[in-house]
C-alpha cells in the first residue's frame, strides 16, 4: 500500500514539473539579442576626444542612412529645422554623390528598416563602404551622427558604427549610445573631433555649427 502511495506521489510530482515546464514557452528572450551591457564610460583607447572648434562643412549636403533605421528621417527633420536642406537618399550610392560637398551619415541598424529596403546587413555594409570610400576620394566632408542612443546599440547597429567613423571628419553622438565609450574610442583612433550631447533634441545646435 505504501509503495502504491509513494508511486502515486512520484507521478503527481512528475506531472507538476512537466506542466510547469510547458509554461515557459519558446518566447523567452535570448540574451544574445539584447543590447550590450555598458562596460565602461572611458574610451577604450584612452585617447582624448575634442569637440568641434569651428565649421568644417558646406552645402550641398547628401544625407544617407547607415543601417536603414528611421533615424535618417529624424536627422532630416533636424537639418531642415536648422536651415540645412539636405538631399536625402537612404540607399544612396557613389553615383548619387553628384556635386555634394558634405556627406552626412545617420547611423543605426533596424531589422525593420533593412526588411523595408529589401536588403540584409551585409548588403547595407557593402553599399555604405563604397559610398564612404567614394566620398572620401572626392574630398567630401563626412559627418557621422549616432542619435538613437542605447536603442541603436546592440549586435545589428554596432556593425555600422566603425565603418561610419573610419573616414569621418566629425561625429555627433547621443550620450546614451556611448556609455561603453565605443564611439569615443573610434573617434580617438580616427583622430576626429566628436561632440557628445544629452538627447536627440540637442543634436541640432552642434550640427548647425558644423556648417560654414
Amino acid at each position, binding site marked *: 500500500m505504501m509503495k502504491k502511495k509513494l508511486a502515486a506521489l512520484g507521478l503527481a510530482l512528475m506531472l507538476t514539473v512537466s506542466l510547469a515546464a510547458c509554461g515557459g514557452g519558446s*518566447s523567452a528572450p535570448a540574451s544574445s539579442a539584447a543590447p550590450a551591457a555598458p562596460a565602461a564610460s572611458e574610451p577604450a583607447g584612452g585617447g582624448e576626444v575634442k569637440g568641434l572648434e569651428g565649421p568644417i562643412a558646406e552645402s550641398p549636403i547628401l544625407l544617407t542612412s547607415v543601417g536603414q533605421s528611421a533615424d535618417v528621417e*529624424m536627422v532630416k527633420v533636424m537639418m531642415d529645422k536648422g536651415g540645412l536642406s539636405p538631399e536625402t537618399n537612404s540607399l544612396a550610392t557613389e553615383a548619387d554623390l553628384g556635386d555634394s560637398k558634405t556627406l552626412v551619415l545617420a547611423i543605426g541598424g533596424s531589422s525593420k528598416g533593412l526588411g523595408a529596403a529589401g536588403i540584409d546587413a551585409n548588403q547595407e555594409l557593402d553599399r555604405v563602404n563604397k559610398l564612404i570610400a567614394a566620398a572620401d576620394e572626392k574630398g567630401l566632408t563626412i559627418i557621422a551622427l549616432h542619435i538613437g542612443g542605447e536603442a541603436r546599440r546592440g549586435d545589428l547597429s554596432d556593425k555600422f558604427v566603425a565603418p561610419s567613423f573610419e573616414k569621418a571628419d566629425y561625429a555627433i553622438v547621443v550620450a546614451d549610445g556611448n556609455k561603453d565609450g565605443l564611439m569615443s574610442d573610434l573617434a580617438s583612433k580616427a583622430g576626429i573631433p566628436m561632440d557628445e550631447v544629452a538627447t536627440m533634441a540637442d543634436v541640432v545646435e552642434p550640427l548647425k555649427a558644423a556648417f560654414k
Partner: protein
Amino acid sequence: MNKQIITASVCLLAALSVAGITGKNFMEVKKPDELRPGPGVTQTKMLSDYFPDIAGTNADSTVYVMEGEQPGGKMLVLGGTHANEPSGYLAAITFVESGKVEQGTVFVIPRTCNSGFTHNDPQEGSPQYYTIQTKGGPRQFRYGSRAANPLDQWPDPDVYVHAASGQRLSGSETRNINRTYPGRPDGTLTEKASYAVRQLIDTEGVNLTFDLHEASPEYPVINATVAHETAMSIASNGMFELQMAGIAMSLEPSPTNLHGLTHRELGDYTDTLPLLMETANASQGRLRGKTNADLVLTGKDKCYVKAQKLGFLYVPYDETGHPIEERVGRHLQGIYEYSKAYSAQYPESPIVYNGLPSYQELFLDADPSELGGTQLGKYLN
C-alpha cells in the same frame, strides 16, 4: 450504501458549486466595461455599421465619434487591439471621456479586438480586472488576451496563411487582429473585424490612424513608433517634438515584408496614414515576477529591475517601474504631436482637440504616490 450516497452527494454538490461560481465568472467577463463618454462624444456607432456581417458577434465594438464644431481632417484611434496591453485601451478611454474636438472628427474604438477582452491567456496568471479610482468612484477594467477568444473562432489552423500576401505564421496568429489586416468580408471572425475597421476608414475618409500597443520590456521595438512610409514625414516631425519634450522614443519604418499589421496594410490598402505606438508593459513580459493588477498599473517588478542590470532589456527599468500614467501619457502625447504635425502638413484638413492631459501633467508633474492609477483616474469620469 448510505455512506456512499452521502459521499457522492457531497461531491456532486461541490462540483455544482464550482461549476456555478466559475460559470458565473465565465459569463461576467463577456460584459463590456462601463465607459462614461464625456461631452466631446457627439455620436456613438458600432463597427457593424460599417460591416453588418459582424453584428451580434463578439467582433462588434463601439465606435465613439467626436465631431468638432469646425470641419477638418479625420482621425481614428484604435485602442485594445491587444486586450492585454492596457495603456492603449486606457488612452482610448481617456480620449473618449476627457477629449473635446475643435476641428475635424475623431473616431475612437477602445476595444478594437472586442473578443480578446472576453477571455485571457491560459497559464499566464493574468488578472481578470484591474481597478482605478476615478472621479466617479472605483472602476473596473478588463485585462484580456492578445488574441480573439477561441470560443468565437475555433479551431486554429496549424499554419495561419495571411490571405492578402500568402505570409505564413503560427496557427494561433489567426486570432490576432493585428495580423489579419486588411481583412476579408468572407474570412474568419477576426478577419471580418479588421475588414470592418478598413471599411470605417474608407467610408469616413479617415486621414490619420493610430494603433496603440504595449510590448514587454525585453522586446526590441518598445517606446517606439512604427510608421508606414506614407506617414514617415509626419512621424519624424512629430517625433522631433516628442524628443524636445523629453520623451525618448524611437522611430521605426514599417517593414514591407511583414504583413497583416495596421502600419503596413492600412497604409497599403487605404488612404489613411497609419502609425503604431508601443509602450513598456511588464505584465505581458516573460521575465516578470508576481502577476497581478498592481503590476499592470505600476509596472513595479523586482525581476525586471534585475533583468535591466543584466542588460536584457530595451527600456530603462528601476524600482519606480513604468506606471500606467507614463504609458498612457506617452500615447496621448504621441497622438497630440503627430496630429499636430499632420495638421501642419495638411493645413486644409486640420485636426485640433483639447481637454486631454499632456505627458507632463499626467506623469512628470504627478505626486509619485498617486502613480499607478490614481493620477490617471482624475481624467476618467
